[in-house]
């Protein structure tokens, strides 16, 4: 059995960030296992710009951002296994992986989970009608066009105004295709406002709020889709149906963290994020197994993934060196319109001087205040403007605030001037 200090599962930005940081902290035997034939993860297909403003202070494309991390990983002499899929991990940190040479058994002192997320598919949203070719998730279409180099279709409807859907709508127009409409299933767009502007408005692509597809028609290939308006409950308003002739439907209906391996190991999963519960050190419910990036919660900005992964890598290194934290865990409990907070648990003694809390909100709020309480005492409050469900909130908090805290940390939203 091969032995490593730290094994990282997934070679996207999260896995690479964690590996590089662990190496910098003096850990010698670090291995990254990646199932694809190259490193970089999903960034390799995100060829548009907008990455890295926080980390590198310049605007990079996905592949450029990935290349920087791949180059750093090479400089650090990190061991890398490509074209190798991890099929199981256990509580005692034994890893089973597979590639063309057969099954590999690897033992680690610490593991970092960095498997990213996957897209929800047609089956997870149930559209009636035929099952012809020409229905893709937006991410699959992104891979076909940007990596494999062929167009997915000429006349396209995009269901779901997520970032990937809007980015792909623009990409299709640039390649000479036509996008008839992007349908938002509610009155709020999930994606970033800048993507509505730079992907749709700048290319005259119509964005229809409160619309859904009610039927897909076609024998071999998509021939048309029926689109209808929906009410506040997202139910179809009869009589508003309209038929669009098209050959392709892209689905951009959300991402879910990829946690089959975490479940096999018996790691506790948060139902709200679909990722593992983690503490301030990005450690899961199993000591010595850490997680970072989209496997924990879906990020919209890769820079935050990098920050999180550095934290996971540094703490995995500390774990291997035998450094322990003695203080009690406090749970972060959210309410009042905040859907989740990562980390879920905080141990005072293991906190850095400034800890970043990542949160999302349920609704659109023009003005709101995040209030952090402990046992009836207000610890701190932060005024916020223009909160939307599509944009993750990053709030850094000082360690000193929590010096006397015990039990649950309650995080709530006081809404001022809601929507």
């Amino acid at each position, binding site marked *: 059995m091969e032995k490593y200090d730290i094994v990282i599962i997934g070679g996207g930005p999260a896995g690479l960030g964690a590996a590089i940081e662990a190496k910098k902290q003096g850990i010698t035997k670090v291995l990254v296992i990646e199932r694809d034939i190259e490193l970089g993860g999903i960034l390799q297909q995100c060829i548009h710009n907008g990455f890295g403003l926080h980390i590198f202070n310049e605007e990079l*494309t996905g592949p450029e951002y990935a290349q920087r991390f791949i180059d750093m990983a090479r400089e650090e002499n990190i061991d890398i296994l490509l074209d190798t899929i991890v099929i199981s991990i256990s509580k005692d940190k034994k890893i089973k992986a597979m590639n063309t040479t057969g099954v590999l058994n690897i033992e680690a002192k610490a593991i970092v989970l960095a498997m990213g997320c996957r897209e929800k598919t047609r089956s997870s949203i149930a559209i009636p009608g035929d099952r012809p070719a020409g229905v893709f998730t937006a991410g699959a279409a992104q891979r076909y*066009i940007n990596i*494999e*180099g062929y167009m997915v279709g000429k006349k396209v409807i995009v269901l779901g105004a997520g970032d990937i859907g809007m980015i792909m709508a623009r990409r299709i127009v*640039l390649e000479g295709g036509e996008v008839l409409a992007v349908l938002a299933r509610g009155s709020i767009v999930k994606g970033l406002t*800048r993507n509505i502007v730079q992907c749709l408005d700048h290319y005259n692509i119509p964005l229809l709020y409160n619309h859904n597809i009610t039927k897909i028609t076609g024998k071999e290939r998509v021939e048309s889709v029926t689109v209808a308006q929906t009410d506040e409950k997202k139910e179809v308003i009869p009589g508003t149906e309209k038929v669009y002739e098209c050959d392709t439907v892209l689905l951009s209906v959300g991402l879910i963290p990829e946690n089959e391996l975490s479940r096999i190991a018996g790691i506790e999963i948060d139902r709200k994020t679909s990722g593992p519960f983690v503490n301030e050190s990005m450690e899961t419910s199993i000591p010595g197994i850490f997680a970072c990036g989209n496997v924990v919660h879906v990020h919209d900005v890769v820079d935050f993934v990098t920050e999180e992964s550095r934290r996971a890598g540094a703490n995995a290194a500390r774990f291997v060196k035998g450094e322990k934290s003695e203080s009690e865990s406090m749970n972060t409990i959210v309410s009042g319109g905040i859907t989740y907070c990562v980390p879920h648990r905080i141990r005072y003694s293991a906190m850095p001087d400034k800890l970043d809390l990542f949160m999302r909100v349920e609704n659109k709020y023009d003005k709101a205040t995040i209030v952090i309480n402990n046992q009836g005492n207000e610890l701190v409050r932060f005024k916020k403007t223009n909160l939307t469900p599509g944009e993750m909130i990053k709030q850094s908090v000082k360690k000193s605030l929590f010096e006397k805290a015990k039990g649950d940390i309650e995080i709530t939203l006081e809404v001022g001037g809601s929507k």
Partner: protein
Amino acid sequence: MDKNLVCIVCPIGCRLKVTGTADDLNVSGNICKKGIAYAHDEITNPMRMVCTTVKIKGGIHSVIPVKTDKPIPEKYKLEVVKAVNSIELTSPVKMGDIIISNLFETGVNIVAERDM
């Protein structure tokens, strides 16, 4: 003029309010200075970054991503892709290599986004 714009320079996406005339613009709502420059360009001469792919022989994939090395006047955005689609590269290519220089005499180059 009385215009609402969204600054697209970074993901924060500040909502900008623009008043005044093209020569004497008044911009508010921006968190940083880049928002003012963006509003100026957007009113007088809109510029766009364009990212696309080029065919490549001998690489691990059949296309490689490329981009304009700086924003190009918006009227060229579709022309950029057409120009790039007419060429084919041969591996190896390094990130930052110039694929087409001074496209449409704009001073903008097309560069590779990665090694391949």
